[in-house]
């Protein structure tokens, strides 16, 4: 996968919010790249900057926020510094987004067909009938039964799961290269979430779209993604293939995160807990922002660690990382890695 040139390459992306209370560095030096058909999970606590990263990729950051630096290259083209008109042409065609709350992402007073057809006709001079046909096909593709009737319905006539499918169908309409999915299943029921995950995976495999799946649920990432990036306070602190990261987290934060998932632990036992809470982005400590909550932190942590490669496509940002679970264990099966993880906890 790393052989083919990446569809999306993000480097040192920085998006800041200039609020009355100060500058919130919501995204502060995020870098990653995404290959064709690749699914990347972006995990992190609430407020760590996941959504803002997603918005930045589509140029949708509203004042008081602003992309202050870095580079986003989509298929080799630099997006930062483009005009709003250029962005508009890109959105929905080359890069699309799905939001968390399916109840809120569709305009409640417009019919589904209106909302779908406009998305097609905004980008190509397609006839109404053709656009409708494409919309119908898109609905069918995401598993909505009797799409013809559904086109004429209003969003409130759909359940949450159906709405999210419609949103996905809209994102797919113009077959973008990259889809940013911002916690699209968090608000849904477990069984519905399973259905959507199933369909999304199928679609990615079929169309070769790359996807960034934003979530705070490690289990979903484990089930869906090829690789995972863990964000903390606006920065990516660890990145790598899913199995490797979940089985052998290097960064203490990732380590704590994985350890706090109950099913990783033996029943009834105390969970690993990360003390404290996420820092305010307005007053980040100098150096490693996780240091105040980190059991391993020492004086060195007052200096900002760089994102360094850790072998096996992995990278992390820590002065005192956990050891990978033995040279041999890195490639070990999930079972074994799970055991070691638990033993440590």
């Amino acid at each position, binding site marked *: 996968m790393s052989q083919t040139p990446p569809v999306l390459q993000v480097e040192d992306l920085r998006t800041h919010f200039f609020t009355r209370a100060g500058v919130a560095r919501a995204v502060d030096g995020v870098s990653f790249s995404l290959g064709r058909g690749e699914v990347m999970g972006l995990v992190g606590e*609430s407020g760590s900057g996941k959504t803002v990263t997603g918005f930045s990729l589509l140029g949708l950051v509203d004042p008081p926020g602003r992309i202050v630096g870095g580079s986003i290259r989509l298929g080799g083209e630099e997006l930062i510094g483009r005009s709003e008109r250029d962005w508009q042409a890109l959105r929905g065609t080359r890069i699309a987004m799905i939001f968390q709350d399916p109840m809120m992402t569709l305009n409640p007073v417009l019919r589904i067909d209106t909302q779908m057809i406009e998305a097609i006709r905004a980008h190509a001079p397609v006839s109404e009938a053709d656009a409708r046909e494409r919309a119908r096909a898109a609905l069918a593709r995401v598993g909505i039964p009797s799409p013809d009737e559904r086109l004429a319905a209003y969003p409130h006539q759909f359940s949450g799961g159906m709405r999210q499918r419609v949103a996905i169908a809209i994102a797919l309409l113009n077959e973008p290269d990259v889809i940013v999915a911002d916690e699209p299943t968090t608000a849904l029921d477990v*069984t519905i979430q*399973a259905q959507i995950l199933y369909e999304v995976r199928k679609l990615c495999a079929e169309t070769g779209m790359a996807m960034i799946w934003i979530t705070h649920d490690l*289990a979903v990432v484990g089930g869906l993604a090829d690789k995972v990036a863990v964000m903390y306070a606006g920065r990516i602190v660890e990145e790598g293939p899913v199995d490797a990261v979940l089985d052998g987290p290097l960064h203490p934060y990732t380590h704590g995160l994985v350890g706090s998932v*109950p*099913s990783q632990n033996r*029943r009834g036992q105390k969970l690993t807990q*990360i003390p404290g809470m996420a820092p305010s982005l307005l007053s980040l400590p100098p150096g490693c922002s996780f240091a105040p909550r980190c059991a391993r932190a020492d004086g060195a942590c007052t200096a900002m660690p760089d994102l360094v490669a850790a072998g096996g496509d992995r990278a992390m940002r820590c002065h005192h990382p956990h050891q990978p679970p033995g040279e041999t264990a890195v490639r070990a099966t999930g079972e074994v890695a799970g055991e070691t993880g638990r033993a440590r906890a």
Partner: protein
Amino acid sequence: MTGEQPLLRLEGVSKRFTKHLDAAEKLVNLVGGRRREEVVHAVDDVSLDVREGEVVGLVGESGCGKSTLGRVVAGVHQPSDGKVIWRGKNVAGLSGAARRDALLKIQMIFQDPMSSLNPRMRVADIIGEAPRVHGLVPAAEIPAYVDEMLQRVGLDPAYKTRYPHQFSGGQRQRIGIARALAVKPDFLVCDESIAALDVSIQAQVLNLFMDLRTDLGLTYLFISHDLGVVEHLSDRVVIMYLGRVVESAPTEALFSGPNHPYARALLDEVPRIDRRKREFQPVKGEIPSPLSPPSGCHFHPRCPHATARCREEVPRLREIAPGWTSACHLNDAGA
């Protein structure tokens, strides 16, 4: 189980929410209209025993009646049918102080740490109000008592003059727990109590629950849709679907092999960090409207094994192994 009196017993508890017809609708009916009262069977004939010190996990999809059942247990709702029996006494039959005591012994911990605390009250009042009103603690000792409660849930008593909005989500949840503990309950109903918390905070609160259980010998009804959490915490798991209990089993047994097709679907298809990249075979369809639930077994439209009988006859909950009950016609076929 026999002989030993359960701490809490639900006998055929139902809770219906009815929207009555108004005069205009009745009039329309008189002239041949067909307006019906809308009845939601939020909880439908649920029987359940909870023994002292036990942690019972209650899972199910959204709208299946988990919270309603929790509220009935906590005494916030009166059951439409059936009995809630607390330490052998029907709560509905109690009155005065006895009733109040029974009510106080069962406390609830809520989902949303923000909305479950009155934003206009200081922490000290939130926690101290009930003990003071009920005279559980002499008025002079309330401040010390509040401090004690705060410490118990791991908060600095110095914060007690603050308002809820000045705390983080996890801290607020602790305040909610302290408020419940302040009336010295025996039984906690936790309704999605960690769902709204951040990943790293969830573990803190879960650990607190486990500590309280060992320290105070509390009994829990733990409502959650996160199977991982339920598995981790509970001794027994009850699975609900559209107001009915479909399966109830000891945790280990259930997670090793659920009996009801719905339970199986739920357990299988939910992503878990230790089972990655499995091929999903999700249950089809969505949870039906509780206003017009399917006939017979509520699950039959989504069930891969549904038969004609499932469409007509409501399956009864029957014991398939000691302490393990399930409501599925397939069990009869096998038996």
